[in-house]
């Protein structure tokens, strides 16, 4: 099927596309990434090695990827939605067999030069495939029960695979991301209400399963939940992360202890200071001013992303933009809530700031899709 622009609209073409780039988002992404370089430099005790420099290179690659993806027509990406979903699903299955084991979970496929985390790719592929589905579906049918079932299956399949790794955090991200796309597509609120009740039932079942033969979560996951509810119950054990990270943040005060002056991160009281807990280092060293500023940058990105989705009259582009923005939002909101002790520790990185190859590339690729939708939207 060939792309037929809506009447009265104009699709930019050729090198001129660059003018239609969402430069605001691009600049904000770069700004947030720079914060990441700075913090990785700091947690390495003022050294570009081993994290900061590599992160810069990845950002460079990621930025280039974003540009390339953005220049390609969104219609092309729409045609790749189903294959990429199937491919990601296959990778998730593969990871069960050949995945690298780390921290009690099977998550990576070692490609030699790169450790691919299929669940990261799946987050985008799921958004794409759901957007594709609702783009195709007659809007009249969106809320009909029969037509609600396929997207639910599309979501539950990867969620189940990710849970088997086990990676509760990513599974939740997948589920919520999919729910956002369905919500934007116009699925009746009744379904969401019902799903919320079902989720509560599941949570209840899971919690009561503790200690029984059919226990649904690993012991350490239960421990995380119970220590989240009362971190002081185990200050040196599982509650250590939360306790130390709130201490670090709080001790930063209004203006922070100064760049590279954070004692908590300097002296290794913070766990995983260069990955999931990097935000605490920032908060400790730059204080409330620093942390609220980063939160501001993130908020601007989701605001601009949402506005772009709202103004996009192409249904696929709009849904993709909304889905990616929401996924991005979930990343930083869950990470921040986690390090501030508002959510259990679930292992979600701070987007663009935490050190990590897959996450950076996938995220920039996703923003490439968002940019493509923005560039190619009917004007």
């Amino acid at each position, binding site marked *: 099927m060939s792309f037929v622009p809506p009447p009265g609209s104009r699709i930019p073409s050729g090198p001129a596309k660059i003018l239609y780039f969402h430069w605001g988002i691009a600049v904000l992404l770069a700004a947030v990434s720079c914060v990441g370089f700075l913090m990785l430099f700091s947690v390495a005790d003022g050294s570009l090695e081993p994290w900061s420099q590599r992160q810069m290179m990845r950002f460079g690659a990621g930025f280039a990827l974003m540009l390339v993806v953005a220049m390609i027509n969104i219609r092309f990406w729409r045609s790749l939605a189903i294959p990429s979903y199937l491919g990601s699903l296959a990778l998730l299955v593969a990871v069960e067999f050949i995945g690298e084991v780390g921290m009690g979970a099977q998550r990576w496929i070692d490609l030699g030069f790169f450790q691919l985390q299929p669940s990261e790719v799946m987050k985008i592929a799921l958004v794409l495939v759901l957007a594709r589905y609702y783009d195709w579906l007659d809007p009249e049918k969106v809320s009909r029960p029969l037509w609600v079932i396929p997207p639910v299956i599309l979501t539950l399949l990867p969620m189940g695979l990710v849970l088997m790794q086990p990676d509760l955090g990513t599974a939740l991200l997948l589920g919520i991301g999919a729910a956002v796309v369905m919500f934007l597509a116009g699925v009746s609120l009744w379904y969401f209400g019902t799903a919320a009740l079902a989720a509560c039932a599941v949570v209840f079942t899971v919690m009561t399963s503790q200690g029984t033969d059919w226990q649904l979560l690993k012991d350490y996951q239960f421990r995380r939940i119970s220590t989240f509810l009362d971190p002081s119950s185990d200050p040196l054990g599982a509650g250590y992360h939360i306790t130390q990270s*709130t201490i670090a943040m709080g001790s930063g005060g209004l203006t922070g202890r100064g760049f590279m002056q954070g004692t908590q991160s300097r002296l290794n*009281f913070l766990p995983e200071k260069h990955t999931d807990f990097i935000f605490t280092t920032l908060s400790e060293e730059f204080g409330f001013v620093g942390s609220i500023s980063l*939160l501001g940058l993130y*908020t601007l990105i989701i605001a601009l992303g949402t506005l772009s989705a709202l103004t996009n009259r192409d249904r696929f582009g709009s849904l993709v933009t909304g889905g990616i923005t929401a996924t991005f939002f979930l990343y930083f909101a869950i990470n*921040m809530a986690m390090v501030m002790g508002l959510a259990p520790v679930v292992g979600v990185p701070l987007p663009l700031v935490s050190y990590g190859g897959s996450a950076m590339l996938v995220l920039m690729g996703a923003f490439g899709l968002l940019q493509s939708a923005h560039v190619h939207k009917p004007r």
Partner: protein
Amino acid sequence: MSRQQFPKKDGPRISRRGLLLLGGQLGVVGVLGWRMRQLQVENSERYRLLAEENRINMRLIPPARGLIFDREGRALAVNRQNYRIVMIREQAGDPEEALNRLASLIEIPEAQRARVLKEVRQKSAFVPVTVAEHLNYTEFARVSANSPALPGIIPEVGLSRFYPEREATSHLVGYVGPVSEKDLKEQEDPDPLLQIPRFQIGKTGVEKLDEGKLRGHAGLSRIEVNSVGRVMRELDRTEGTAGANLQLTIDLDLQNFALQRLAGQSAAAVVMDVHTGDLMAMASAPGFDPNLFVFGISSTNWNGLLNDPYRPLSNKSVSGAYPPGSTFKMTVALAALADGAATVNETVFCPGYMEVGNRRFHCWRRGGHGHMNLHDGLKNSCDVYFYEMARRVGIDKISAMANRLGIGVRHDLPLPAISEGLTPTRDWKQRTQNQSWLVGDSINAGIGQGYVLATPLQLAVMSARVATGRAVVPRLVRGVDSKLIAPEEAPDIGLDPRHLAAVRGGMNAVVNERHGTGWRSRIEDDSLAMAGKSGTSQVRQISAEERRLGVFRNEDLPWNRRDHALFVAYAPVQAPRFAVSVIVEHGGGGSSVCAPICRDLLLQALYKGPPPLSAYPASDRDEIEQRRALQPEAPARPAHDRA
């Protein structure tokens, strides 16, 4: 699919939901911002404090322990450099291999090796583990010189207590040892220093009782540590103050001499300056090497000390309470005189026994002494005379006089386990034994038997008080941190000088008049002549029965049932300077066993060294010459039957 229509149909719907979504997201952002404010603005003080607590550790720097000297400034307890080797695993690599390398330089016994390997495994990689301690300098130097080839093996110098005089002052000075749970419980507000692993505190003797002065105050080092406790850097440091140095009243030469004279016996001797109360020597034999305890005593050594019938761990000079025997007679005499129950010249007839009711109390001389006044009663140690005195004056007044002379009261010295002795009264017997006091009890007490108990220290104090008429108080510490403590002028004891003179005359006669019980141990130099009193105290009450039946002679009894031998003395007679008491457990007769020791101690003290042979009676000179030739070798302990 009519794509052309969807902007019209779906646009508004997406917009509404999209705005709703954005609103929800902004709401979450608001919660996050609120939480940031809560943590970083409202409660930041609290968290700042917690972060500091995380980061900063106080480390105590143990102060150098105060030294202990004798009155001439000779060291009794010092801090010696303790050369030790520690290992840090993270630098050493394989601990087994590191130990092998080290073993080529110094000897590492198998047990020690096992202990080190176990400790290394248990502790964090950066915590130093002590591999060897108390190395000699040569070994230490050998390890230091090879340190470039021994990564992670670190030679260190610490301080550890050393007692250069070993046995001589073991009971006085005591020893230090690691803090025990019990030590911690005993203290109301324990010094944080006590928490330092391997910190040592005084366990006995002056080390224990003057612990407060000797310990000093800890220095403080503030260090920054990381999450696993590794020291990152020192932030600041305040040095502590070393403990105070103590100067004791003891004269080391005299102390050594006393111990040599007592060697081979289970015995105690006390020499006291009669004017200042300074304890010049306080010996308890046998002694033990306190250094064994500092190094960590082996169970073999410990059991050896514990099970020795001569009780080397006990300080007999202050904690041994013995029936004073005839050395108590001065007290009985002074009580009777002060009470007016007898006069100085009044005589008592001694037929060899005294009958009270249907009981017969014997004099040591079966045939009797005839008419005895105070002078002759003391000189001959006539029992009947003192039976009569005791009967007349009664136990309560005898005990009161004994207390006045320093017996049965506690003398406050920085020593543990000081015995109060015992001066019985009617009340006391009623209270403790629920029996009424009998005349026979008084009569027994008249010759220092029965319930009366005194320590060698108390007997020396008694002797000094009789010699001076002043209430001299013994003291053991002469100075703190090179500031001498002036001795207090002893108050007059308030006894009639004529009574005192009569008692002194009797004591003089004991030694310096022919047929006196101490005649053979007199000092020939008239200006230094000694006065004294012998005593032989029965270990068991029934031995009186045995003696009456003539079944046993003392020498026939097993060692631990023989009589204790005692002697108290002071010298010079004309102007007393030193008082002395000696007891030899199960030693036999006081005059033959203890009197010569008293004399030798007094001469040694008066001359501040070995006196000329001319001071000794001609009969003893050969023996003394021989003994001096043997010095400083201590005579071997005689093979007593220790059954």
